[in-house]
């Protein structure tokens, strides 16, 4: 069960060649910008096609180059939260969330929206447009929309990078909460070390399109496999580590 990927993709002088799997839990793809983290999410969601490899979710084949299976993005059951959130500017909060409902009848949709609006504390904002709400609220709408279709896994592409620190902390807490409630694998892309440390059940360290190290946070942070990973891990600096301990979200 869970999500397992094996991907090879070459684009303009960059080669992504990764293989990993996660059970239920929060996996953090961690590394510098340009290491291939976001590309991995796009390949998983079917928005790009790998040159070869395979993608399995809960025992279902979504992509397999050898078997010539390639499900279109519409048929891959992921909740995808984009880096810029990609809320539809011409739809209200409610319509944005409804747009994520897959194959439900009208009553189920109505009940589903009500439930998820409550869960993400969006009451009273249903008729607002994305331009009229705050960054944290937009964030919650994007998560709500991604979860509305009961996805098999959540893919989050640096969703908190544009937020102020206090809201970012609140969002991390909310995300942990959401993960427990929905009990699905969550793949979180980030280059923020605190986020990686506090959120992850498993950290997958990316560098130059490859995986340098994978494992639980304490293992990766405690025993970096090489100088490059050590440097990545030390990017946190002495200032942020106490903060990190203060805000322990477990």
């Amino acid at each position, binding site marked *: 069960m869970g999500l397992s990927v094996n991907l090879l993709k070459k684009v303009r002088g960059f080669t992504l060649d990764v293989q990993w799997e996660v059970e239920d839990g929060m996996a953090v793809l961690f590394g510098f910008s340009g290491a291939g983290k976001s590309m991995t999410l796009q390949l998983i969601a079917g928005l790009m096609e790998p040159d070869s490899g395979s993608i399995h979710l809960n025992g279902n084949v979504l992509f397999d180059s050898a078997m010539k299976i390639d499900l279109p993005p*519409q048929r891959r059951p992921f909740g*995808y939260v984009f880096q810029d959130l*990609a809320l539809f500017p011409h739809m209200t909060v409610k319509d944005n969330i409804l*747009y994520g409902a897959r194959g439900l009848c009208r009553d189920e949709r109505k009940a589903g929206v009500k439930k998820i609006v409550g869960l993400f504390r969006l009451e009273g904002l249903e008729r607002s447009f994305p331009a009229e709400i705050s960054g944290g609220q937009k964030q919650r709408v994007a998560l709500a929309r991604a979860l509305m279709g009961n996805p098999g896994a959540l893919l989050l592409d640096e969703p908190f990078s544009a937020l102020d620190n206090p809201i970012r902390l609140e969002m991390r807490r909310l995300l942990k909460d959401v993960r427990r409630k929905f009990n699905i694998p969550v793949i979180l892309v980030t280059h923020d070390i605190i986020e990686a440390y506090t959120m992850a059940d498993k950290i997958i360290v990316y560098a130059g399109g490859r995986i340098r190290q994978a494992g639980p946070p304490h293992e990766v942070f405690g025993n970096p496999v090489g100088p490059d990973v050590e440097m990545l891990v030390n990017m946190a600096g002495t200032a942020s580590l106490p903060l990190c301990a203060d805000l322990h979200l477990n």
Partner: protein
Amino acid sequence: MSAINDATLFSLRLSLQVATVATVLVMLVGISVAYILARKDFRGRVLLDILITLPLVLPPTVTGYYLVILFGRNGFIGRFFYDLTGWSIMFTWYAAVLASFVVALPLMIKTARAAIESVDKNLINASYSLGHSELETVFKVILPLSRKGIIAGVVLSFARALGEFGATLMIAGNIPGRTDTMPLAIYTLANSGEWSTANFMVLFLTLISGFFLYITNRVGMRAV
């Protein structure tokens, strides 16, 4: 003779009728082609773009000449129609529609394409990954978000169709009471010195075109 007589009213009505029908066709074809040019990569894309844009830069008489070669009684396409049905589009008001359509189409495609290309790719990807088909995405995300450009294209196309002269003259002729749209009627009136009627029509066309430009500007200025 008063400026507004039956012939004037006929030209006015014919012009509106031709421009309206041509604009509806331009919308259907133009938006589809604009979408394909904006979002699809295929062989011959550049060629299609050039072919469709040519009427924008060619003299309308040349565009009309091509239409005669294609759709005339002995034309490449027109011949089959004539053999099959004994009917030819030449010198009918449909020919005026065809001329207006071909001349106005590039305006629609240029503006709609730019608008479609400016829609955030992530929004389209989001729609796909939320389970919506390409067609659904077109109608629920792409077209609503490019409506400004599309409306501008429709208004420009209508104004261009209303003012079409050269290509219409070539393929529909200038038959009083049948194919003399306003621009053609103005030409005839000026030739025969009927200034008061000509003045009326010229003023009318100027006002209506100015009005459309005003609408285009307003649509263009309004925020998304």
